[in-house]
C-alpha cells in the first residue's frame, strides 16, 4: 500500500468505514458497558466487523479504541488495561486488513472537561492521550483519527500526543458541529474556521467533521471547511439522528440516500468519506460504488 499521506496529498478519494458502536450493540454489547470492554473478551467480534467493512469497500478501517484513553477507561475501572485494550483492538483489525486497507486508530474525547470550566488539567489530559497513542503506535497503526471532539483545546492535545513520538504518523482530526442560527458550532462554541485553523496548527494532516445529524447537514459543514482551508478533508456523517421505534434503534438515512448526498462531498474534494453512528456495511458499499463511479 502506498503511504496514506501520499494519497491524501495526491487528492485521491478514500472510503472510510461505518459505525462501530451500533454494530457492537447489535452483537450483544450491553448498554452501560463501554465498547472497549469487548476487545479483550470478544476480539472475534471486532474481526467480524472489520471484515464486513473491508468487504464493503473501506480503504480505511478504524479500531475499537474511541474511548481507549486511560481517563475515559477509568470511568469503568479499566484504565489499568489501557495498553492491552488498545493493542488488541489494533491487532484484531490488522488480522483482517493485512495490507488491503489502512488501519487507523480511533481516538475520542477523554470524557472529562478541561479547566477552568471543568476539573481536569490540560497536562493530565495530554498524558492520558499520550499513553493511549503509545500503545496504538506500538501495535502498528497506519494512522490516527481523532474524532467526535467538541473542545478544540482537547482535540489539539490529542493531535499533539499522536505526533509527539511519531511526527510522521498521519493524523486525521474531526469535530462534531451543531447547526445554530449563527452557523455551525460545537457545543463548546468552536466554529468550523477555528477548528480548521487550530487542528492544522496542532499538526493534523487532514481535518473535518464526524457524527452530527445526518449527511445533508454534513455537506454544509464540509462546504464551510472548504471555505477556510485547502487541507485534505475527512467527513464521516451519521445516517441521520437515532429514533427509537418499538424498542429498536432506527436511523432513517438509507445507503442509497446517504451515498447520493455524499456525491456533493466528493465534488467538494473531500479526501476521506465515511460513516459514523447508524451507518452500516450497506452504506459503505454504496459510498464505494459512488466514489468508483466518479
Amino acid at each position, binding site marked *: 500500500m502506498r503511504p496514506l499521506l501520499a494519497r491524501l496529498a495526491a487528492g485521491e478519494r478514500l472510503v472510510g468505514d461505518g459505525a462501530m458502536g451500533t454494530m457492537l*450493540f447489535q452483537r450483544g454489547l*450491553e*448498554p*452501560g458497558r*463501554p465498547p472497549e470492554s469487548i476487545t479483550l473478551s470478544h476480539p472475534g467480534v471486532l474481526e467480524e466487523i472489520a471484515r464486513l467493512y473491508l468487504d464493503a469497500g473501506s480503504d480505511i478501517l478504524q479500531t475499537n479504541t474511541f474511548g481507549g484513553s486511560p481517563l475515559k477507561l477509568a*470511568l469503568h475501572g479499566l484504565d489499568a488495561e489501557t495498553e492491552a485494550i488498545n493493542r488488541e483492538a489494533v491487532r484484531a483489525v490488522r488480522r483482517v486488513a493485512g495490507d488491503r486497507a489502512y488501519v487507523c486508530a480511533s481516538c475520542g474525547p477523554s470524557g472529562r*472537561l478541561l479547566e*477552568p*470550566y*471543568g476539573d481536569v488539567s490540560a497536562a493530565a489530559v495530554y498524558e492520558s492521550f499520550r499513553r493511549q497513542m503509545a500503545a496504538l503506535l506500538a501495535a502498528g497503526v497506519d494512522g490516527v483519527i481523532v474524532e467526535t471532539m*467538541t*473542545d478544540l483545546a482537547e482535540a489539539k492535545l490529542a493531535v499533539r500526543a499522536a505526533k509527539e513520538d511519531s511526527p510522521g504518523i498521519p493524523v486525521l482530526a474531526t469535530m462534531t458541529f451543531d447547526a*445554530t*442560527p*449563527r452557523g455551525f*458550532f*460545537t*457545543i*463548546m*462554541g468552536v466554529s468550523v474556521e477555528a477548528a480548521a485553523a487550530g487542528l492544522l496548527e496542532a499538526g493534523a494532516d487532514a481535518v473535518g467533521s464526524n457524527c452530527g445529524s445526518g449527511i445533508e447537514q454534513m455537506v454544509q459543514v464540509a462546504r464551510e471547511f472548504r471555505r477556510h482551508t485547502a487541507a485534505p478533508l475527512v467527513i464521516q456523517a451519521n445516517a441521520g*439522528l*437515532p*429514533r*427509537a421505534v418499538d*424498542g*429498536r*434503534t*432506527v436511523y432513517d438515512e438509507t445507503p442509497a440516500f446517504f451515498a447520493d448526498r455524499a456525491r456533493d462531498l466528493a465534488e467538494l474534494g473531500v479526501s476521506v468519506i465515511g460513516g459514523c453512528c447508524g451507518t452500516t456495511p450497506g452504506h459503505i458499499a454504496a459510498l464505494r460504488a459512488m466514489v468508483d463511479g466518479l
Partner: protein
Amino acid sequence: MTVLAEIADAVIQGDGPRVAPLTKQAIAAGIPPKEILDDGLIAGMTVVGDRFRVHEIFLPDVLLAAKAMYAGMDELKPLLVRDGIPSLGKVVIGSVRGDLHDIGKNLVGIMLKGAGFEVVDLGHDVAPERMVQAAREGGATVIGMSALLTTTMPAMREVVELLRVQGQGGTIRTIVGGAPVTEAFAREIGADAYGFDAGNAVDVVKTLVGGR
C-alpha cells in the same frame, strides 16, 4: 450599578472570585437573602440561560457562570435555611441506567439551580429503584431523567412504572429528555412531561410544580 446588579453581572461573566465577596457585601448591607438570590444570582443565571438558548454563548460559558453562581449560593444557603425560605421545589435528576452521558443532564441541573430549584443529582447510570427511592426519601416532587442512547430509554418507562406501583404517580412527577427522546415517547411511557433542551426543561418543571 447596585450590588445586586453587580452580582448578576459577575455571574454572567463567570467571575466566581468576584461573586462571593459581592454576595457577602450584599448580606452585610442588610439586603434580604431571598432578594440577593432572586435579583442577583438567579437574575444573572437567567441571562446566561437565555444567551445559551439562542447560541450566543456555549457550554464553557455556562459552566463558568454556574461555578460563579454556586460561589454565591454557598454564602446565602445558611441564611436562606435560617429564614426558612423555601426553594421552588426539589428535583431529583440523573442519566438512566446504562447511560453514561451526562453533559445534557448536568446542564439541566445547572439551569434548574439557576432558576431557584433544589437539585439532587444522582449522576449517570442510575437504577430506576434508586431514582424513586431518592425522590421519596428526599421529598422531591419531580424526577428528571436523561438518556442519550436509544438503548437506555426503556429504563425511563421503568421509573414511571415504579412510581405508579408505589402509588407515587401524581405526587412525584416525571420529566424526560435527551437527544433521542421525543414528546411522543414521553407520552407513550406515561411520563408527565418532556423537555427538548435544558432551558425548556426548566420551564416545564416550573409548570409541573406550579400546576399541583
